[in-house]
């Protein structure tokens, strides 16, 4: 069965996607910062049908940690993974970032430089192995910069562009690059926000990530209606957009 590597495995959306793959009897290698939480998720996936589950503790925001993680994953699976889901990220505090360039750099490192680096390395390994899928959880926030979270948004915009190029380059080598763009999802990351009708549950989002990753969808809005919301937002003329408070 498929070998699934999840980077940032304690993310609520990734956990729900993993539950779906567990139902297909896949094997997992889970990477995250919190060992105990990774252990709980591993137990859960085993009961749900996962063949084998390995865990590995690492801070993925640090690029120098990546090589070791990829070696550990390949050793666990005895091959390059079939599917890699890159799921970590931080929302960041836009107001604090406006006055602290170090926070901006930290945000860009976690949300752009690190996942881009990992996606690139994984795609190359998969190209050598002859097949594979790299799915990355990005965000609709990358579609246009808004005053309320443009640092996070620009990191995700950079990531989207990187993934688009990588997808183009990898297409002929049978490696699929999937850009996942969730809208509002009810996860611990958004616990402080008031939930409106546009919010999707983490379970729903996880199911859609599972579906699109298996299919190899190039760019997937999660749920689909964000495609239309962002189409409108992208097409508001800048003279009008700059006056809006979004």
């Amino acid at each position, binding site marked *: 069965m498929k070998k699934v590597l999840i980077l940032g495995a304690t993310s609520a959306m990734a956990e729900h996607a993993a539950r779906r793959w567990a139902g297909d009897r896949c094997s997992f290698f889970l990477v995250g910062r919190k060992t105990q939480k990774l252990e*709980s998720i591993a137990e859960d996936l085993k*009961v749900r049908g996962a063949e084998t589950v390995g865990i590995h503790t690492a801070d993925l925001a640090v690029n120098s940690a990546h090589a070791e993680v990829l070696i550990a994953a390949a050793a666990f699976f005895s091959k390059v993974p079939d599917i890699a889901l890159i799921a970590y990220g931080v929302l960041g505090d836009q107001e604090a970032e406006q006055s602290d360039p170090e926070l901006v750099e930290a945000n860009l490192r976690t949300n752009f430089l690190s996942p881009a680096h990992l996606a690139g390395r994984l795609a190359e390994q998969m190209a050598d192995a002859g097949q594979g899928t790299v799915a990355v959880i990005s965000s609709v926030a990358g579609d246009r910069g808004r005053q309320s979270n443009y640092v996070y948004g620009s990191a995700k915009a950079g990531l989207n562009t990187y993934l688009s190029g990588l997808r183009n380059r990898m297409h002929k080598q049978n490696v699929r690059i999937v850009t996942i763009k969730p809208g509002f999802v009810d996860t*611990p990351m958004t616990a402080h926000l008031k939930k409106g009708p546009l919010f999707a549950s983490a379970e729903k989002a996880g199911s859609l990530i599972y579906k699109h990753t298996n299919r190899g969808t190039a760019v997937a809005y999660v749920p689909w209606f964000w495609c239309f919301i962002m189409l409108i937002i992208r097409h508001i003329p800048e003279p009008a957009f700059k006056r809006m408070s979004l």
Partner: protein
Amino acid sequence: MTLRRDIQSWGRLPETEHTVHEITDRYASLPNINGVGSCLPHGLGRSYGDSCLNDQGALLLTTRLDRFIRFNADTRELTCEAGTSLASILDHIVPYGYFLPVSPGTKFVTLGGAIANDIHGKNHHRAGTFGRHVTEFELLRSDGSRLRCSPTVNPEWFRATIGGLGLTGLITQATIVLKPIHNPHLEVEHIKFGNLAEFFELARESDASHEHTVAWVDCLARGDKLGRGIFMRGNHAPADRAGKQRPVSSGPSIPVSAPRFLLNPMTMKLFNLGFYHKQWRRQTDHLIHYEPFFYPLDCVGNWNRLYGKKGFFQYQCVVPFAEDDRAIREIFETIAASRQGSFLAVLKVFGGLPSPGLLSFPMPGVTLALDFPNRGERSLALFDKLDAITAHAGGRVYPAKDARMSPARFRRYFPKHSDLVPFVDPAFSSSFWRRVQFS
């Protein structure tokens, strides 16, 4: 931590304000609730009244504690985190040939909630309450201690927490024993009965032959038709009688609160009449998937909105068996005379298996559950009358459904309530608990 005013129980009655904390990690200690006084675990909020609420205090939301921990096929023991819903447990176990040992009328309750309310189901006469099938759980107390509880380890904490309404601490994980089944279907018979005497006769006869029994009763019928309805009894289907696979689809959802005029004595009468006469023959046999059999209302999302913005009450009582069934007869008479009853009443005979909890609701006898749209004082006056009959008969009212019983009634219904007090966590409380203890 977030302040929220939109949290309601299933009856949508009280306006509340809660500080909410999401619990995502069973190893983490309890959040700091300084400043709001007390906290209460809150799962899927399917309790009808105020037993799942803690107005002006904190709620510990448990639905993200939803991981499986282990399954032992030899002992059929499944261990899960306490926020796991019975729905997701069923989704996982039914394809492997297992079922819940006891199942309530909705699958949208959490494992922790099922224990805290010591829920019962259509197989009470065979299996007793949910708590009887719990072999172990972990209780996290506000002093940071973690108690492993089972019938033999910390047995006094085990008895206090089962049916303990979430007051003894946060259940982080629990182990239940599953029941083996051959397939997801049940062989079900629907039998029409003309009055209460016929109901009791059917119940007696079915207890030995059928694992699941329940009746829906026309609560508006009076005189010699009093207590008429349809008796449903079923057994899990044998291996050679598998039905068709049920298509996976979700039903409609009620988007907004219904206008009040839809619920009037005329529409209620039509509904009850229609249900009773839907079936012409005395008996019909069916092979039914477990979902419509156990959870007929779960296919309509947010059906509680049908009762309009003012919400509704559910009254569920149990009265011990008596020669002439006088109490249950009197209760039906009182409800029919009030013209306030709404959709179908549910009637079920409880068996004699003892409930493990100090505050468990089931006792040997017959239980009746019925919804009432909230008509303010009129509704409350009716419930006081029903309480008088229930108390006189030596019965009790179900806290998970209650939003109004008086402290005096509570003490009479649950004589062991004072035994629970020493086990209540000093940092835990609920709107229900304050109402029945101190007001």
